[in-house]
């Protein structure tokens, strides 16, 4: 049994990798003005996308000061917020996107490890 489980875990991982490689990622980054925090978030997200999702992602940066209606529609509370609209499930990543591990987990690019 433990062996079977191990296999299924690694299979799932591979599947996730495969999926990640093929699936289109629709990402929205909501920022509040061009603050240092916003620029840091933009820089981190683009770098990460280029590294892990090269060629199959769609990233749009929205300034909620410019489009406050979207803040309401998208249920934005914090800024910056990165929303993974596709693939499902929907995820919200808030902050400067400095913690790469957590972002990869949040974007389902990496399975949750034991410590988090």
């Amino acid at each position, binding site marked *: 049994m433990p062996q079977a489980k191990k296999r299924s875990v690694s299979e799932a991982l591979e599947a996730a990798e495969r999926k990640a490689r093929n699936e289109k990622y629709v990402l929205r980054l*909501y920022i*509040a*003005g061009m603050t240092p*925090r916003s620029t*840091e*978030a933009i820089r981190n997200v683009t770098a990460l996308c280029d590294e892990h999702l090269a060629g199959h992602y769609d990233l749009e940066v929205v300034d*909620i*000061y410019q489009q*406050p*209606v979207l*803040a*309401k529609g998208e*249920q*934005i*509370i*914090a*800024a*910056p*917020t*990165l929303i993974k609209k596709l693939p499902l*499930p*929907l*995820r*919200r*990543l*808030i*902050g*400067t*996107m*400095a*913690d790469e591990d*957590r*972002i990869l*987990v*949040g974007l389902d690019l990496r399975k949750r490890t034991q410590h988090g």
Partner: protein
Amino acid sequence: MAKSKTLRVLQKSPTGIQGLDEITNGGLPCGRTTLVAGSAGCGKTLLAMQFIVNGIRTYHEPGVFMAFEETAEDLALNMASLGYDLKQMMRRKLLALDYVRVEPREIYETGDYDLEGLFVRLGMMIDEVGAKRVAIDSLDALFSGLPNELILRAELRRLFRWLSDKGVTSIVTGEQGERTLTRHGLEEYVSECVIFLDHRVTNQIATRRLRIVKYRGSGHGTNEYPAMIDSSGINVLPISSLGLNYPVSKERVSSGVPRLDAMLGGKGYFKGSSVLISGTAGAGKSSLAAIFADRVCAAGGRCIYFSFEEAPAQIMRNMESIGIHLGQWVQKGLLHFESSRPTILGMESHLTAMYTLVERFRPAAVVVDPISNLTAIGDQAEVCAMLTRMIDFLKNRGITAVFTSLTEGGAPLEQTELGVSSLMDTWILLRMLESASERDRILYVLKSRGMAHSNQMREFTLSKDGVQLVDVYTGQGGVYTGSARLLQEDRDRAEQLAVAQAELRRQRELEKERVELENQMRSAQARLQSIQDELRAGAAVEKRRLDTAAQQRKDLARVRKAD
């Protein structure tokens, strides 16, 4: 306005919740944030919503409501039950409503952030309707969704300052904490005004209370005030703030029993006074109270009958048996029965319910029957406090109040269980007197302020013809009531009869004697007459004899031819 007078006094933003505005001396601090703390289900959301809706409806101040716990749809539906049409207000651009969904499972923290999203949304809504009032309900959801409390706390502090800068008066709500006022210590950030709503359960009875924990720059009532949620929303009852400066009336109202009126200085109770009818079980307390209600209605006044023991139908049926027809007044809308078991609500809720009903019905008199079983839901001190408030409240409105109180068998009669007698202006005591194997009702006026009341005991009788007060028999043998009184009266009557008969007999005998004597007199006279007649007859015969003899002698002499 003199220029030297630059003292700025804190402006207030009325909530439109009458009691709350009274204890806060006018409302919430204008342009500041007020925290409403309390446990689940205590009415925080409702209070916040009433603040916003009343602002729109009454004070022409558009408002913003940011909900974290209920969707706009749910809110609109819930508030519709209070008659608030949120959707219409939104269409008319008087209200902006936003549901902020915080889903902890979706959120990943990845570094530093702020809550600008929230600010932007609030700012947009405030600008959209030109809001003067903002409610945020409740901030606790943020704490569950955003694990980084450090950021959150800093942002909340910024939020309250920002709201203040926007010039809006705001309410934020927060869940009650175990040891602190709110679970997340929100009171640290809101320094202007903190209101605490409590929903306490004692002896299985829930009571809502409201307390102003602090209110910087303003005086406020410091007590816990009873609050109630009914069809009109939250009601706060600041009755204890009433002073002893109510108007008094010289007008009198009849007690419904003419002889009782006579005992009360000839005219009955004072209008707006409080009357206590106490007595043992079955002494007729309710009947006396119902008669009063009947009298008030017959005079065209309105009356509310609060019954804690009997259903309206039962009271009406029972009173029919003594010739009191309460049903007609109910039909005419003059009499309102409010029957409930005391245990159905907490003490304060009862008070609030009474208060609300009195405000709505505007009666000339109320009857509370009885106050003694309120002890089922509170201790003596609580009941006494409640009655004090109630009496003050009624007196302020010039409403005559009749309270009945049961004295337990064996308890001292001239002492109410609740120690409320000193609150009462008139105290009528009903008691049962046991004598000659029966129990009779005795009534007397123990006290009645401001009138020369009778010191007499009266027997109180209930029959199908109504209530009557009868003089008790006071004779050599003491006080008699009931059949003993009747017996004594019979005995007296018999005695009098005997005396009368003896006199009659004596008179008859004398008469007989007189008649006899007259008869004797008459027969004696008759004898006398006959004797006289006889005598007269005898004399005539003798004369005739002598005449005859003389004639014979003459004849003889002639015959003899004598000389």
